[in-house]
């Protein structure tokens, strides 16, 4: 029982570290978006049932946890689809220039972004700023360019506090 508990969390931890390592190893762009970057367990469920013919049957949330509801259900659903709900908080890409700015996705019309600079020697202390829709921003230290892409409902993040 103990082993199962421990290994299942090791699984989520090791799944987590490759992704964070790959983030820093990726060519250049190093900018960090600052919403609560949850240490979400990437792919903690790896469920694909193999049929005899070798094909894979896609599982539904009901097959994994029938009574799942709310946020838990969404989490399982996203995991089965192979997508990371919180990937919007970990943008990756090459160093942003004026012609090809670094794209930061956002649910609202503006969000806080932090620029850590370029690769290796070009790193600097994180510079935080508000990135607004329609207003591309240039980092005052390393001149990396950022642009907001609204993927959600838009609006001001502080309007309509949560219910």
């Amino acid at each position: 029982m103990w082993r199962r508990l421990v290994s299942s969390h090791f699984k989520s931890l090791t799944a987590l570290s490759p992704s964070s390592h790959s983030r820093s190893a990726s060519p250049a762009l190093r900018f960090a978006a600052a919403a609560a970057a949850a240490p979400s367990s990437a792919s903690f469920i790896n469920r694909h049932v193999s049929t005899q013919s070798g094909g894979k049957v896609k599982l539904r949330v009901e097959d994994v946890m029938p009574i799942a509801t709310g946020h838990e259900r969404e989490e399982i659903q996203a995991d089965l689809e192979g997508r990371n709900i919180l990937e919007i908080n970990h943008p990756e890409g090459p160093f942003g220039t004026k012609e090809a700015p670094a794209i930061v996705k956002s649910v609202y019309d503006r969000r806080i972004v932090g620029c850590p600079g370029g690769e290796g020697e070009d790193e600097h202390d994180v510079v935080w700023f508000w990135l607004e829709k329609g207003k591309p921003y240039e980092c005052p230290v390393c001149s990396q360019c950022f642009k907001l892409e609204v993927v959600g409902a838009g609006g001001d993040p502080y309007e309509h506090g949560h219910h």
Partner: protein
Amino acid sequence: MIESQRHSYHLVDPSPWPISGSLGALATTVGGVMYMHSFQGGATLLSLGLLFILYTMFVWWRDVLRESTLEGHHTKVVQLGPRYGSIPFIVSEVMFLFAFFRASSHSSLAPTVEIGGIWPPKGIEVLDPREIPFLNTPILLSSGAAVTWAHHAILAGKEKRAVYALVATVSLALVFTGFQGMEYYQAPFTILDSIYGSTFFLATGFHGFHVIIGTLFLIICGIRQYLGHLTKEHHVGFEAAAWYWHFVDVVRLFLFVSIYWWGGI
């Protein structure tokens, strides 16, 4: 929805239970002191306070169940909280009981002249460890095995068997408590009988209290399992109960060896 929440955590809604628990604790402590100093109304206040605390526990944890099982707020990261939080809690309980073990060994390893320079003290008729204690220890151990059986059943998705296993666990626990009660009743010495009586009853008494708490926790788990709350992916409450139960079990083993067996020689 998590999409609108943008994070996997659970920001709890405002709740009256923390303040109600605090008020209950206030009533308990003040009432307790009043009672102990024979003030009028002390006993009433004390019992009201205890009842209020119990009520708070009931409604607070009911809210937790509602938020987790019925509303789905307990995502993977949220589950880590209670899971890894129950470990320090159990450790704190170990520390608490350790104090009583230390008290016992402090007095028994170098018995003072007042008790005859021997342990058990002169005149104390100790319980024979080969009688009820020797029966009760394996009873508790088997209930520990039963709770492991229940866990495996839950993990395997065998919901009915898990209920049976939990019923077995609780039954054994209740038998244990019954026998302990009987033993207390029949004991030839009381808590007032020298340091031996004090340490014996405090150590075994608090252990028994923890057994009762653990039994209650397991009963709740049994009810939840019956209602279908626990799934093989997600049963943090059950795991916490099982860990607590194993801790109770281990303490019993230490108790048996150090207080019943060694302490009686």
